[in-house]
């Protein structure tokens, strides 16, 4: 890791860290505000204890990423809100359970004394029960804080900026400096908050005012220092609503988003990007005008949005998609960019030669002895069903990987066949053979530029983005992908490569 790469990553830190902490603190503050009164009610009502604590416990067993993703369709939007609600839900269990335990754990004779002395219910609560339960309550808040700081890194795919931006984009673009910065920053934040709240707990146990003041000041200082830069920045930013360019969670998408962002900025249109969003989350965000434009693929839209099982010729599909998106969602499909990123099956060239396999047809007779690896999506997609149905594929084993690790797996022989993207530069460097699809079970995945309903009404934007239609060929995108995935260059470098090739392409056309 060199200093320049680190420096480049650190410039995002104020924004990512500030947003991360703001999200966490907002969720925790709400969690505390909801849980304390709820815990008091629950501790006073025996019939409520089991059901409430069970429900809260069940919420806790939902994996963090799933809970976050679930909030998007439930709330119908992306960004801060779904992440915030999910984290609030996540913070509830430790705070609620500890508070209930703390209140119920107060010595019975102490309560009898309080009542017999003539304390009202409220006086008992505030003078006796809560002070005595305080160490437990603070311990609950401590646990919730550490959980929330950790889980907030998963807020990136639902469109909330967090330290997870480092981790998600870093993993996909093989930028391990970014991953490291994200992990270390999140860990540091968790440790510092944990220690300070731990100090607060000790202050409560020992009834020490000075200790409580030190812990409180430490917390204020930490939160203030982390939030200050992003709060100052956001004041400047809010004067104009920038165009939001979206991107899914893989290299090509990051590059295309960087390219679009750069071009729009150059044309004087303020632009921000929201990267690392889940595929359907991104589409919903576009339809809801929360993202203004992004690049999707015809096959994906065909299967996921139009929900059409049978494949049609390329042009028929594009026309139908264009009509469907406009009529049903008000989304403008500006046009194909000029390359395809098809889902395809690939296997090491040597192995393919050994087994005499060159097509999926030929693969099917060997499949029962082979293992297939794939990204998170493929096995649950209709394309996989179509492949299985058309060719009768039955593999010995199926395994799921992060896309960036899938290529390593097939290279090392952990799996024999993978679902690959046809534009992936790693197909060349991993010496993989793309298996042909003679029965055309897989739909074409033409890259298309989509505009949100609001963005389609802006002539400047439409005109500007029109330049991209038909401007990027398969070779260009493969080169750009390779630059990031294999040569370890930055996403921005790949975007400028695409930019240059677009310019020279235009010149050639002009001639």
């Amino acid at each position, binding site marked *: 890791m060199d200093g320049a790469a680190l420096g480049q990553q650190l410039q995002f830190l104020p924004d990512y860290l500030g947003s991360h902490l703001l999200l966490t603190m907002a969720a925790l503050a709400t969690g505390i505000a909801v849980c304390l009164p709820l815990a008091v009610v629950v501790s006073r009502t025996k019939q409520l204890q089991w059901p409430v604590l069970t429900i809260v416990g069940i919420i806790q067993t939902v994996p963090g990423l799933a809970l976050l993703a679930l909030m998007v369709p439930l709330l119908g939007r992306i960004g801060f809100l779904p992440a915030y609600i999910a984290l609030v839900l996540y913070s509830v269990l430790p705070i609620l359970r500890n508070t209930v335990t703390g209140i119920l754990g107060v010595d019975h004779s102490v309560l009898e004394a309080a009542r017999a002395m003539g304390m009202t219910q409220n006086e008992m609560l505030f*003078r006796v029960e809560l002070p005595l339960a305080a160490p437990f309550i603070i311990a609950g808040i401590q646990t919730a804080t550490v959980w929330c700081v950790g889980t907030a890194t998963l807020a990136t795919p639902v469109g909330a900026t967090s330290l997870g931006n480092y981790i998600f984009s870093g993993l996909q673009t093989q930028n391990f400096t970014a991953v490291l910065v994200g992990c270390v920053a999140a860990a540091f934040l968790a440790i510092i908050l944990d220690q300070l709240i731990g100090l607060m707990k000790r202050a409560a146990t020992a009834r020490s005012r000075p200790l409580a003041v030190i812990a409180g000041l430490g917390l204020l200082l930490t939160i203030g220092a982390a939030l200050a830069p992003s709060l100052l920045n956001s004041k400047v930013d809010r004067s104009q609503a920038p165009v939001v360019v979206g991107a899914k969670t893989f290299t090509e998408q990051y590059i295309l988003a960087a390219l679009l962002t750069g071009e729009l900025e150059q044309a004087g249109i303020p632009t921000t990007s929201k990267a690392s969003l889940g595929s359907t989350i991104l589409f919903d965000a576009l339809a809801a005008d929360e993202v203004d434009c992004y690049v999707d693929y015809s096959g994906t839209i065909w299967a996921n949005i139009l929900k059409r099982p049978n494949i049609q010729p390329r042009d028929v599909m594009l026309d139908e998609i264009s009509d469907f998106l406009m009529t049903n969602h008000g989304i403008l499909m500006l046009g194909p960019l000029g390359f395809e990123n098809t889902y395809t099956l690939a296997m090491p060239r040597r192995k393919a030669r050994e087994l005499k396999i060159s097509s999926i047809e030929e693969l099917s007779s060997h499949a029962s002895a082979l293992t297939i690896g794939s990204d998170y999506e493929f096995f649950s997609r209709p394309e996989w069903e179509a492949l299985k149905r058309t060719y009768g594929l039955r593999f010995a084993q199926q395994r799921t990987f992060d896309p960036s690790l899938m290529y390593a797996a097939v290279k090392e022989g952990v799996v024999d066949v993978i679902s690959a993207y046809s534009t992936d530069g790693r197909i060349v460097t991993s010496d993989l053979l793309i298996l042909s699809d003679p029965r055309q079970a897989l739909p074409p995945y033409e890259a298309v530029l989509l505009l949100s309903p609001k963005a389609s009404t802006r002539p400047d934007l439409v005109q500007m983005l029109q330049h991209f239609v038909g401007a990027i060929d398969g070779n260009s995108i493969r080169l750009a992908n390779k630059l990031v995935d294999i040569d370890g260059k930055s996403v921005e470098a790949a975007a400028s490569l695409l930019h240059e090739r677009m310019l020279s392409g235009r010149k050639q056309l002009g001639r």
Partner: protein
Amino acid sequence: MISLRQVSKVFGPSGTHAVREISLEVQQGEFIVLLGESGSGKTTTLKMINLLIEPSAGKIMVEGRDTSAMDPVQLRRRIGYVFQGIGLFPHMSVGENIAVVPRLLQWEAQRVSQRVDELLELVNLPPEDYRTRLPNELSGGQKQRVGLARALAAKPRIMLMDEPFGALDPLTRDTLQIEFKRLQQLLGLTVVMVTHDMMEALLMADRVIVMQQGCIVASGTPHDLLTAPTHPYAATLIQTPKRQADRLEDLAKQRN
């Protein structure tokens, strides 16, 4: 001062009678002991007086007022309560524990701190030594002294005591019994105390009420009870301390 008329308490849907139609008059400055085994209804009777337990039937008057028409919180602030569990607030110093009821009654700060010192002197705990200590730094006897001081803080005229000395070692118990009896006479307190300790009852009470299965079976001065028990159960009860006293006497004679 306190008057119970035909008071009953029924617990739960099964309708178990803890107390059955008991009537009792307590005069001002009188020291009453409710004596009985566990389950005899003595604690239930005691707790109905300050409405920690609500009576199912009957009428309870405290200082001439029907308690069913009173706010339980206000009633309790006027009655001292001491029990075996003591229940000092562990997060408050000795001084703060004693100050609880005066503060609930919104006394001025200076009056409160004056009263705290006065009470600590009264229960033989030097204020400068004990005022700022936490309950977990005290012995059992010291804790109950603080418990007594706390119950007396707002100058109640009535004290309810539920086996207050039950958990103390015999020597401490003896000292505290003597000291409290002195305090009671000094302050002219009306006391209702629950115990199953016959000795304690005989030594402290002006009048002993013997309870069995929720009913009062005997009532009289310790002298009456010792010399002419009117009920067979009271007679059985009295036999134990008598026999113990006789045996002690025998033992003493043997040594000589």
